[in-house]
């Protein structure tokens, strides 16, 4: 299974919550109305804006869809080698 790093730029996030609608297992809103990152619905080491996770291809596609839905492009996805998968550079 691919291992990816998912990161929310809290400065860009405006709380539109489209990522939460599409990929609720990976994104939720916190008290500051910013999206934070979960690993399959869990929060090991507490609430974080960035984390590594192992995903299936289907999960990967859905997380990408969530990132693409963000109107401020505040979600970044990297592969294991550190290459930015989204947004396209």
């Amino acid at each position, binding site marked *: 299974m691919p291992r990816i790093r998912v990161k929310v730029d809290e400065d860009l996030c*405006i709380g*539109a*919550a489209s990522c939460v609608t599409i990929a609720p297992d990976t994104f939720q809103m*916190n*008290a500051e109305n910013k999206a934070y990152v979960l690993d399959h619905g869990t929060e090991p080491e507490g609430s974080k804006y960035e984390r590594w996770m192992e995903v299936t291809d289907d999960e990967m596609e859905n997380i990408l869809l969530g990132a693409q*839905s963000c109107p401020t492009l505040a979600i970044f996805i990297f592969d294991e080698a550190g290459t930015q998968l989204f947004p396209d550079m």
Partner: protein
Amino acid sequence: MHYVIIGGGIAGTTCAEELRKLDSASKITLISEEFHALYSRVLLPHYIKGKIPRERVFLKKESWYAEQQIEWLAGEIIERVDAKNKHIEFVGGGELSYDKLLIASGSEVKLMDQDLPGVSYLRTLDDADQLVELMRALPKDAHACIYGGGFIACEYLNIFHEANIPITLAYRGAHMWSRGISEEAGMLIKNQLVQNGITVIENAKEIECIGEKTIESIFINGQTYPCSLLGVGVGVAPHFSLLQESGIQMHEGILTNAFLETNVKDVYAAGDVAEFFDERFERTFITGNWMNAQMQGRVAARNMTGSHAAFDLVSSYAMNIVGIEIIFIGDTSRTHADETRLIGTVEAGGVTELFVRKNKLVGAILTGRNMDRAILTKLIQEKADLTDSGVVLPM
């Protein structure tokens, strides 16, 4: 099969993208009034504030359209839709026939009667470019004014506030969103504005711009206020004048069923222009936000290619107003609610208003109470019965 999409914004472009995923062979034509490739309107304030460079607002490169084999007609305006003969006519001549048509022509800003250099609107990338230029040219003692009491007024507030420009805000109602939110929420927002040094003028039914070559002041309710730059946000109206005599049913927007189909076969609508039937809330809606437009573009594409999927989304919209957050979730129409309930107080720094119909929570407006968002969204999504003792509302 030839799919034609009117409108190159997020609804139209998402539809084109999804159509191509579902149908690799058919012809897709996307017609856009603007010359720019798809960009995020939501990112425009970030660009104006200098948080991101201009090129970051674009969501698609110009080369993307050809790569996807989507014919992109930029800078074209539609004169008329002839739904009977299944073709559209362009301003300046020319026709294009279609097999299936999506209208995603968006909305237009309402303009003031007067126009003077220094008067700004905030809808398009060109508007944003103009505002950046205007702000660059401001003198040191500049004073900015804002006319309007909705989302665009909030964007201007945040932009001018971050730039440390003194602000006078005038709106037509007794408070911001005067028809939409409770008095208590209005008071909370006003307190926040005043605490941040913003001059607030309520019940400003009319405004006069004064200046010769450029705006110098504004005249409201019998008083003159200095003004080097005026940001206007007095609402939008769906853009559907091209549909006169088309036979397509319109009300406040283009009427569609839950499948985003209009009353005319093979014609669909999505985004800000669509007044769609929402099965969850059992009434028609116009929802002018990004998430709604994007999701509708996707659902429209599925239905245009033969699926039969109802559009179902508990829409929400959040806005930070110089430090206080307001979040609208679901159906927040006072007229359509059987009752409304208020949680929290102005003194405690936050109020949430619940909109209830047939004992079910259908919508909520959270002002300074972000923590209610997840639980209330869930209750609306699950159509929970509030008389059920297991349902616990926030305190």
